């Protein structure tokens, strides 16, 4: 009798645990903490986390596959560290969307597809100029104490403002029809809504199997990156963690929630990175290559406009594509292709020198001054956003 009660209560616990993880949304500050921990683990395991480099690898392969480039990319997508984390993020978000029964292929009106493609082109270009996207060029760059990160942060803010102004203009001048659901079809033979969570669980299981397969072929490091990527995908999808919101919302609704979440994450990541670098667990200047200041600022600006048009940055394009948004799938392809093409053009030009070079703050002003300065800048961003949330001084309509 007591056994039956125990089984029943355990089943109840599992059900409520599942509901808490996959049905309720996670608070964004909690996701910020998880993302910082995972980013620190990626740094310890391999190199500082980035996304655009993985997109470039995909773009290189697309161009090579379409015979538009003769250069065969050096690394296969499954052996390129940033590409592997991206695959993980996409798979993690897909699994999470299936487990929470939110996955559905979502169409969009024609104008939205055009904005998705143009947004991808701008983000792909901006990420070349800044040597990184919202993750590699801003989040990781600020966290590893590369001056370019701060320049890109300013650029992203200006770009988000310009992009938002365009969206207002578009609402006034380009009315568009909605994408209406088609007439109701016959009931499908298989009820997918009941199967989705099992498919999602299967994808997570495949991620773990992939880790062991990578290990068996002497590539445990890649397996680990895939696994961390999957966890980031789950965390970002469950919390709808969005860097675009952090830069857009202060101008759109005044909401400071995502600014606070990104700031919490950034502070934790920066402190973790300081421990790793200051104690030489990894070389102190690792990951410091962002072209300060022209490249980072200009790249941030172009990227910022692009992320507003697309409605997703490098990371949220991946998790939203995993959730089934076809617009963001278009963005993903145009981002990857543009990033690859612009990168090749920049390499063959003499413009690269004009963009600037990596500046490692602790080398410039010592660790003792770098850390309080880093905390002060991030705290000032939060204080500004919190003040603006109340006063709406920067809200543009």
């Amino acid at each position, binding site marked *: 009798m007591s056994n039956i009660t125990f089984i029943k209560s355990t089943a109840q616990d599992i059900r409520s645990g599942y509901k808490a993880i996959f049905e309720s949304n996670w608070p964004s500050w909690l996701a910020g903490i998880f993302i910082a921990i995972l980013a620190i683990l990626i740094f310890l395991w391999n190199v500082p986390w980035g996304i655009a480099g993985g997109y470039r690898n995909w773009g290189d392969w697309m161009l090579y596959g379409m015979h538009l480039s003769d250069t065969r990319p050096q690394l296969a997508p499954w052996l390129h560290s940033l590409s592997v984390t991206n695959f993980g993020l996409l798979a993690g978000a897909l699994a999470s969307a299936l487990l929470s029964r939110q996955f559905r292929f*979502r169409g969009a009106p024609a104008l939205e597809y055009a904005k998705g493609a143009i947004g991808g082109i701008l983000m792909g270009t901006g990420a070349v100029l800044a040597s990184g996207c919202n993750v590699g060029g801003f989040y990781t760059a600020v966290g590893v104490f590369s001056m370019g990160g701060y320049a890109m942060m300013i650029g992203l803010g200006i770009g988000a403002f310009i992009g938002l102004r365009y969206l207002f203009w578009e609402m006034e001048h380009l009315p568009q029809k909605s994408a209406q659901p088609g007439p109701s079809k016959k009931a499908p033979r298989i009820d997918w809504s009941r199967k989705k969570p099992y498919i999602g669980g299967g994808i997570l299981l495949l991620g773990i199997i992939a880790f062991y397969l990578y290990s068996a072929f002497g590539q445990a490091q890649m397996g680990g990156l895939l696994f961390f990527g999957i966890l980031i995908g789950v965390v970002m999808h469950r919390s709808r963690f969005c860097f675009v919101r952090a830069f857009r919302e202060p101008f759109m609704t005044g909401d400071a929630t995502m600014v606070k979440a990104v700031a919490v994450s950034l502070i934790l990541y920066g402190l973790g990175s300081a421990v790793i670098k200051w104690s030489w667990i990894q070389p102190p200047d690792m990951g410091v290559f962002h072209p300060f200041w022209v490249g980072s600022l200009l790249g941030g600006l172009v990227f910022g406009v692009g992320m507003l048009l697309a*409605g997703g940055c490098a990371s949220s394009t991946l998790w939203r594509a995993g959730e089934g948004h076809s617009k*963001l799938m278009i963005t993903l392809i145009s981002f990857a292709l543009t990033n690859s093409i612009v990168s090749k053009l920049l390499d063959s030009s003499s413009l690269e020198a004009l963009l600037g070079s990596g500046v490692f703050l602790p080398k410039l002003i010592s660790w003792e001054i770098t850390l309080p300065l880093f905390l002060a800048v991030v705290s000032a961003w939060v204080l500004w956003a919190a003040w603006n949330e109340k006063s709406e001084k920067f809200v543009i309509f």
Partner: protein
Amino acid sequence: METEVMQSDEILDARGLSCPMPLLKTKKTLKGLKPGQVLEIWGTDPGSKNDIPDFCKKGGNELLDMIDDPAGYTRYFIKKG
């Protein structure tokens, strides 16, 4: 049952639009309404399920209801504050 017969003063069709367009259009449409009037929004973006209630809570408007329509979209009813 009450929601089935809920009357709205204006309908905003944001189906197929993804973040931030549904919220942006909601904010713009609400500006044109008088306090007490009800705006009904049709949306398909899962993000709106967080964004619209949060926006109402912070912006002084009242979210009267949120219904998943069998045709595959969500109907939000907002009373302008």
